[in-house]
């Protein structure tokens, strides 16, 4: 098999966290929001588990629902969004059942988010330092001075100078803003951090810096992390396990190395070939043929079947259940075993189709 296209080596297995207990368990989560007269099924039955200190990536194209999933996990729904069914059990508590005030107490102190658009995710009329101070004081009630010290420590942690605390967001560069967002996310010592495309808006250099920062922080603080991105190589740097999302569903889940070397779902395989590697041999860039699925009326059976080169009649009729692969992973494909056995032949098929 040809070498996987990533920046560097896949992330080594993270140091085992202090307790391997489950921190987050999502079961059959479904969220949809209303557009015009129809409902967009952005998240349609997602299940996964995350342990303390574990890192997990969620990759997919734009429109796959991955960002919606991230927001849904924190119950940050748009005005026209609803959680249809499912549970989000965080440290034993089902977030879906909580009332708003109870949820608010957990926010930021137990789980936090690093938003995609740091450009606009910070309030432009408040100083950056003050935004951190406010968050800390809101949840812990410490004095302003103590909170400011904490903000300074956080800035140091992310590699920003103390003097920047008094700055306004528009005075920060893209990379700096992103790091400030990370500092803000960590300010109340959450156990879980969800990072939604934190490096997408950055240039390559800043991207590398911020990624390294996140990686170090995750390791040093033992954070559980869910890293959402459309760039699989970025996810590979940080995450121990990766889930692939398509049309509102998770279609494959595997340890990162496993996913990259031996993908078991056709969509994953196509995704992997879409990313150029700076170091590897020159490859033909394959974009996944066809267009993203309609989330209001998704395809029947396996949602990927209209674009899948291996599709068979059963694929349009029966939605494949998660079929176990190795190391606790699974893939939602009727033919995942055959694809594995056929190995390089399967790759050739893909390339011809592309």
């Amino acid at each position, binding site marked *: 098999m040809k070498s996987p296209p990533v920046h560097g080596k896949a992330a080594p297995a993270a140091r085992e966290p202090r307790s391997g207990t489950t921190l987050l368990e999502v079961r059959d989560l479904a969220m949809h929001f209303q557009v015009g007269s129809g409902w967009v099924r*952005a998240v349609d039955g997602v299940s996964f588990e995350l342990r303390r200190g574990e890192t997990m990536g969620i990759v997919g194209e734009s429109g796959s629902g991955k960002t919606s999933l991230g927001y849904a996990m924190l119950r940050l729904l748009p005005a*026209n969004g609803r959680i249809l069914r499912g549970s989000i059990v965080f440290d034993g508590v089902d977030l879906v059942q909580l009332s708003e005030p109870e949820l608010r107490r957990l926010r930021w102190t137990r789980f936090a988010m690093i938003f995609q658009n740091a450009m606009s995710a910070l309030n432009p009329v408040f100083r950056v330092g003050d935004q951190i101070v406010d968050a800390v004081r809101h949840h812990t009630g410490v004095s302003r001075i103590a909170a400011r010290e904490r903000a300074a420590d956080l800035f140091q942690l992310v590699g920003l100078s103390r003097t920047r605390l008094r700055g306004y967001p528009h005075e920060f560069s893209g990379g700096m803003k992103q790091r400030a967002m990370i500092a803000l996310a960590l300010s109340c010592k959450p156990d879980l951090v969800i990072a939604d495309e934190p490096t997408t808006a950055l240039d390559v250099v800043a991207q590398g810096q911020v990624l390294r920062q996140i990686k170090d922080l995750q390791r040093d603080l033992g954070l559980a992390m869910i890293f959402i991105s459309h760039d699989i190589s970025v996810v590979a740097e940080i995450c121990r396990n990766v889930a692939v999302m398509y049309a509102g569903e998770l279609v494959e889940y595997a340890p990162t190395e496993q996913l990259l070397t031996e993908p078991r779902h056709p969509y994953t395989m196509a995704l992997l070939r879409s990313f150029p590697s700076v170091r590897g041999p020159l490859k033909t860039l394959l974009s996944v043929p066809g267009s993203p699925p309609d989330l209001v009326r998704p395809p029947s059976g396996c949602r990927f079947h209209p674009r899948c080169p291996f599709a068979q009649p059963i694929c349009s009729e029966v939605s494949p259940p998660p079929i176990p692969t190795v190391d606790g992973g699974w893939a939602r494909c009727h033919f995942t075993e055959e694809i594995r056995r056929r190995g390089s032949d399967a790759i050739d098929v893909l390339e011809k189709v592309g």
Partner: protein
Amino acid sequence: MSVPTVVSDEAVARLDDEHVAAMEGLRRARAVGVRAFVERFLAQPFAVAGSILLGIVAATAIFAPLIAPYDPFGLYPPLGQPGQGHWLGTDPLGRDVLSMIIWGGRVSLAFAFGAAALSLAVGVVMGAVPGYVGGIVDDIFSRFLETFLVIPRLFLIILIVALLGSNIVFVIAVMGLTMWPSNAKIMRAQVLSIKKRGYVQAAIAAGVSPLPIIFRHVVPNGLAPVIANSTLQMAYAVLTEAGLSFLGLGDPNQVSWGQILNAGQSYVRSAPWIVISPGLAIMTLLLGLHFVGDGVTRVLNPRLSLGRE
């Protein structure tokens, strides 16, 4: 805006194809757009109500000769109370108020459409051309625009009409020529962003000359907010005309609602009916224009999507 100096035949052919395809797409989108626009517009109750009000005013004005019971300039017993014969009474000079109101709609509508249309035409051109051309022309022009926008329009119009006369055609022209800067400002802003789009760049590279580009590709795509603004301008024109007539600056040969109010204002105590009905008429027309304008704005506002991705 630089045009590539060396463009191979294949490149031109390809650009031509892309250009044609883009135009096709645009045309299709626009055709669908019109139907979708009307659908969305009619889905709003206020917009529909506004359209009905406008329709009533327009119909009354158009069919005035058939509907009005009397000649609006004809003289009858003055200050007559509303009753048989004169449903809305008569004004201090003896003119039938109802007939004046029916005929008065013509003047208001003439101002609404005439002034707004003139303002639209001039504003679009004066906003699109400097915006497209850019450079120092645009700089000077923007300064001029900002200057003009500061001046209090009503005072200027009063001054002009007092000095140069109140003939209706003249005043409509004056109004149109003082209203266009706000349209120009909007159009210019639109043009500045549209000229960067793909199909415009394709047209430029294909060697199409600037004028057709501006008026066939750029302007139609930027018209939406200008049109929304135009409904507001129509309301402004009606209101200003009524105000001018109220101050005695209207065309004496025309029947205008403001004029009725002017005549009646000294007789509020003895003949209050004279001031009530013309105001209602003005209000009806303005309500219609504002509701329709609001409906148009809401439909054209691209922020209709509510999803996150």
